[in-house]
């Protein structure tokens, strides 16, 4: 019995060495890079704590098995510098943000499997990589948001997905017009701590991006995400939630214009289907390649049928590029919202150092 096991192991090893001899003998091509963010926040919001925060550091490892197969891992250390399970006020965490294996067949057909960021809108793929955008945080539609009093803040879409995706780029003409697509199926929200699915329902998502040739730097996109959310935005278990987004971006040497809209449907705590709208526009202008003032206006309409309850956020800020990899940015946010028929609001000041390395 034991001899048979040894024989099988030996044959397996020989087969592996036979089929992948070059890969084992070639020089390892492993890259380690990442990004980090330290910030300061002050606010007049009730119960808010003003102070510094080691927001996150992400270590990304990339390895090419061969020219067509890439493995990427992204480990995030968020909200603190040490893990101490006995410390009750500790708020940090370490998690696998991404871990996928990618196979490139040709420009129009590629495959990925593993845990990946949902390809939704302009920001979800660079969600935490603050060094890759002007503002301190990604737009409000990508963040955890509190839709109802007494219900925890949640995202409208799943930030991460564990599953498979197919994606690629079509070059439409010789002038350079392109269409990019990314379609996937995953476990959706409510995955268990070990990453396995908590229910039999799968999430589906997709993004299509059009880059016309008549104006360099212009792009239009649309995204879709649907799943059965185990905990539900309104706290309803296994709630079927759908999200549709459209986005626009124009970028040249100095100007960056962005606009996005998102429609999200889910069940609210009173078991009524609800549609939420989120829109934002953002304008940024870069002086001397390094100094970029930006302005963002976001409007949230939590209930499409009840236009009285709105949430608005204006923010204006300044981004200074110390280098292409290091940014110092500050912004002031004015939040206004209606609750119990009264107008409320608060102001947040944020300053951040964001680095890519």
């Amino acid at each position, binding site marked *: 019995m034991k001899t048979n096991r040894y024989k099988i192991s030996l044959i397996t090893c020989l087969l592996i060495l036979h089929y992948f001899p070059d890969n084992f003998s070639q020089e390892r091509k492993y890259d380690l890079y990442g990004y980090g963010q330290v910030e300061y926040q002050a606010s007049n919001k009730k119960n808010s704590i003003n102070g510094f925060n080691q927001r996150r550091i992400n270590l990304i490892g990339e390895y090419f098995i061969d020219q067509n197969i890439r493995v990427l891992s992204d480990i995030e250390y968020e909200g603190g510098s040490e893990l101490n399970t006995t410390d009750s006020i500790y708020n940090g965490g370490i998690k696998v943000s991404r871990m996928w294996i990618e196979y490139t067949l040709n420009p129009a057909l590629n495959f990925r499997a593993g845990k990946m960021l949902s390809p939704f809108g302009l920001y979800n793929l660079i969600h935490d990589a603050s060094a*890759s955008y002007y503002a301190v945080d990604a737009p409000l539609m990508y963040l955890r948001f509190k839709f109802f009093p007494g219900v925890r803040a949640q995202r409208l879409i799943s930030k991460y997905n564990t599953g498979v995706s197919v994606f690629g780029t079509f070059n439409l003409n010789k*002038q350079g017009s392109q269409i990019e697509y990314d379609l996937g199926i995953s476990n959706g929200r409510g995955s268990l701590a070990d990453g396995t699915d908590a229910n039999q329902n799968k999430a589906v998502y997709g993004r299509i991006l059009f880059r016309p040739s008549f104006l360099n730097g212009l792009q239009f996109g649309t995204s879709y995400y649907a799943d059965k959310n185990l905990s539900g935005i309104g706290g309803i278990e296994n709630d079927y939630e759908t999200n549709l987004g459209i986005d626009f971006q124009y970028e040249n040497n100095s100007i960056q214009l962005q606009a996005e809209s998102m429609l999200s449907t889910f069940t609210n705590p009173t078991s009524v289907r609800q549609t939420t709208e989120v829109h934002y526009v953002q304008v940024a202008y870069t002086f001397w390649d390094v100094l970029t003032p930006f302005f963002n206006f976001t409007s949230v309409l939590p209930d499409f049928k009840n236009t009285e309850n709105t949430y608005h956020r204006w923010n204006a800020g300044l981004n200074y*590029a110390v280098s292409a990899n290091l940014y110092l940015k500050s912004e002031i946010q004015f939040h206004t919202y209606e609750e119990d028929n009264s107008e409320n609001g608060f102001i947040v000041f944020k300053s951040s150092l964001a680095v890519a390395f």
Partner: protein
Amino acid sequence: MIIRLKYHTLLLIASSVLFFFPSKIFCQTIIINKTNPVEKISKSMLRNIFLGNNVSWENGRRIQIVDFISDSPLRKQFDENTLMLSPQKVSMIWVKVSLSGKSIPPKIVHAEEDVKNFINENEGGIGYIKNVTNLPQSVKIIQVTEE
């Protein structure tokens, strides 16, 4: 009189050349690995490659860009004439492209010899140079077309 006419004619011709073919005058030579079947490339494709919008060649081989440091005059010319962006902006775009997981950033080098050597060693490599002498054995020049 004849000398003055000649002078004016030469000036006129030089101005015309500068007006009609500015990009030709400042254009670099694009080189790739000889194993790559591509023989010519359009300017728009070049732009899409060097901004991370195209990540693989038609045969599926990953595109491996080699570029110069951002304060290199050759890089400045290429970025401004071909990509129509400043080197700083191009570097910023690559921060976004690489952190999103879409593509790997260009290999950054200091000298033209480093570009030639990188492409000689990498089958998916692409880069630009000014001095086309002493090309390594596995490196070829490809034609750049307007469209």
